[in-house]
């Protein structure tokens, strides 16, 4: 793999680590890593580069291999193939306790026989110079996670959120170059979860160290991450910035997983540079912008996706002057959610479509009746073309 050093990347806080920046813009490089459990390929030859100081998320459904990959970076799982490089040195054969990364476990894994202070101080004795001022370092770490004053409590005397903070302090006190987090918010309730998301993000900004975060929650990943790798069945489907993954999913799986949901079957009619004109199964014609257009051939079956919030619904057909794409649908169901109303409608091809409509004014959408006709329109730039591959 050829490194592309021309990629200019400025770490949000590279000033904290200038030497590291000069050496190598990558915090972690995963090269062709694979791991099988019996017949199942948990991680299937994955390669990815995680930049220094970024908040990087591994996102995917359970069983997609994201946790296994994280555990391999931590050194808790041995790979079958590939290399893991941390800060430019190959650590593939380095055992977990000698790697400059630390992990925050899903169920926190606090030592039940040690109090908070001793839990946090646990790793200091293995770090050169760690034992010096260990008391001060522990206090500082606890301050950092806003948990001062609980030094003498035992894990079973802490709430879920407090345990979470101890687990975080215990890893951060060792000043790891990379902090790995394995669904650390999974055990918390909804409200606390939201708070911790913001707090973790702030913490990461402040410390400027690389965070690698595993989650199955797309919203969580979007909220916190600089970049996201969406994983499925042991492979990385797409690796991009949060906005890019959300707005421009590159595969049907990513589109589906990011909640896009509205798939339309179509056939390519004409390819003109980056503009691909397709005829949908529902009968209408629309031109789409596809950056990789030359790959498409006329007559090819394709799909395109439009996110529910990009659709606009009206009772009458928009005037022809309106450049937007449109289709006629039948209204089937409305679900009032307070902030918005989600409509389920069906087009002539029988494709089910969700429409997300902000409730801007009271009584919005009352003009639509069940089983009545309506029109959907959208900006063609918001439709994403993709190949008819595995769903």
């Amino acid at each position, binding site marked *: 793999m050829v490194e592309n050093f021309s990629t200019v990347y400025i770490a949000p806080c590279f000033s904290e680590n200038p030497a590291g920046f000069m050496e190598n813009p990558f915090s972690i490089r995963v090269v062709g890593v694979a791991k099988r459990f019996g017949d199942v390929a948990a991680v299937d030859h994955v390669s990815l580069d995680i930049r220094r100081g970024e908040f990087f998320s591994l996102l995917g459904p359970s069983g997609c291999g994201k946790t296994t990959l994280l555990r391999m970076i931590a050194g808790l799982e041995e790979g079958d193939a590939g290399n893991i490089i941390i800060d430019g040195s190959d650590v593939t054969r380095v055992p*977990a306790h*000698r790697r400059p990364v630390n992990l925050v476990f899903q169920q926190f894994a606090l030592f039940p026989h040690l109090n908070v202070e001793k839990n946090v101080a*646990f790793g200091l*004795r293995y*770090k050169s110079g760690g034992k010096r001022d260990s008391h001060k370092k522990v206090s500082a770490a606890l301050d950092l996670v806003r948990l001062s004053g609980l030094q003498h409590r035992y894990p079973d005397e802490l709430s879920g959120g407090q345990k979470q903070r101890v687990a975080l302090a215990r890893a951060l006190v060792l000043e790891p170059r990379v902090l790995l987090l394995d669904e650390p918010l999974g055990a918390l309730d909804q409200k606390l979860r939201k708070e911790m998301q913001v707090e973790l993000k702030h913490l990461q900004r402040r410390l400027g160290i690389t965070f690698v975060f595993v989650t199955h929650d797309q919203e969580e990943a979007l909220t916190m991450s600089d970049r996201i790798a969406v994983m499925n069945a042991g492979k990385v489907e797409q690796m991009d910035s949060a906005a890019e993954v959300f707005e421009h999913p590159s595969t049907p799986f990513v589109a589906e997983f990011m909640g896009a949901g509205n798939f339309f079957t179509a056939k390519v009619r004409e390819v003109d540079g980056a503009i691909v004109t397709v005829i949908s199964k529902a009968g209408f014609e629309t031109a789409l912008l596809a950056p990789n257009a030359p790959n498409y051939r006329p007559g090819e079956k394709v799909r395109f996706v439009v996110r529910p919030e990009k659709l606009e619904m009206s009772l009458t057909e928009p005037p022809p002057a309106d450049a937007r794409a449109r289709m006629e649908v039948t209204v089937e169901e409305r679900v009032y959610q307070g902030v918005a109303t989600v409509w389920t409608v069906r087009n002539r091809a029988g494709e089910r479509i969700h429409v997300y409509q902000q409730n801007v004014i009271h009584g919005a959408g009352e003009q639509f009746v069940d089983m009545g006709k309506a029109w959907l329109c959208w900006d063609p730039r918001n439709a994403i073309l993709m190949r008819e591959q595995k769903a």
Partner: protein
Amino acid sequence: MKSVGRTILRTYSSAVYAFLYAPILVLVVYSFNQSLQTARWLGFTPRWYAQVLRDRELIESAGNSLLVAAVTTVAATIIGTLAGLGLSRLQANRGSATKALLFLPIVIPEIVVGAALFTFFVAVEWELGFWSVVVAHISFSVSYVAIVVRARLAGFDRTLEEAARDLGAGPLGVFWRVKFPLMLPGIVAGALLVFTLSIDDYVITSFVAGVKTLPLHIYAKLKVNATPETNAISTLLLAVTIALITAAQWLLRSPRGRKK
């Protein structure tokens, strides 16, 4: 209606507790009875205790028992703990031979085990003495420690081990700073069990003893008659047992004080 059922159950349970404790209470009370022959209460006297403490044979047998129990406890605890550790490392479907081996001494009647050990010592011409008792006791105790320690480790959260490794602890650090402290209550419980079983054992010891242990001494006396002196010995032994259990509880108390 419900409260009637409650009252009946409570009264009934109290009666069963009385059944469990009455004999022990009787022993203690009658160890202070002046009467030598009958259970008629003839007044309080501590003289049976004085007599017990002058009983050279008794003191000697108690010394033997303590020594046997001490050696047995140390050896069986070490061996059993290792076995528990080894078993906990195996997958659930492995090590069934070892599990069966550990299970047998517990379920086979003591009388059979005692007879077999006696036969063995005669067959290999091992003279019955102190060590024959010790090895017999170790062989029937190892299982208990192994099972208690293994049960303790079965509840052990593997991610704690991983967390320790992740925080920089090597194999030794993981063992002594995480695994061992969490196993310790199991080990102590196992050791306590072994000590109690060893110091109390009569059946197997009666077959292999070359030295007189306390149960042998008490048994010989009980067989003839329950006397105030045997009651006094029993009461003393009870006191020692209770002291031991209390000490163990105190040692095992959770460090955080207010936790149950």
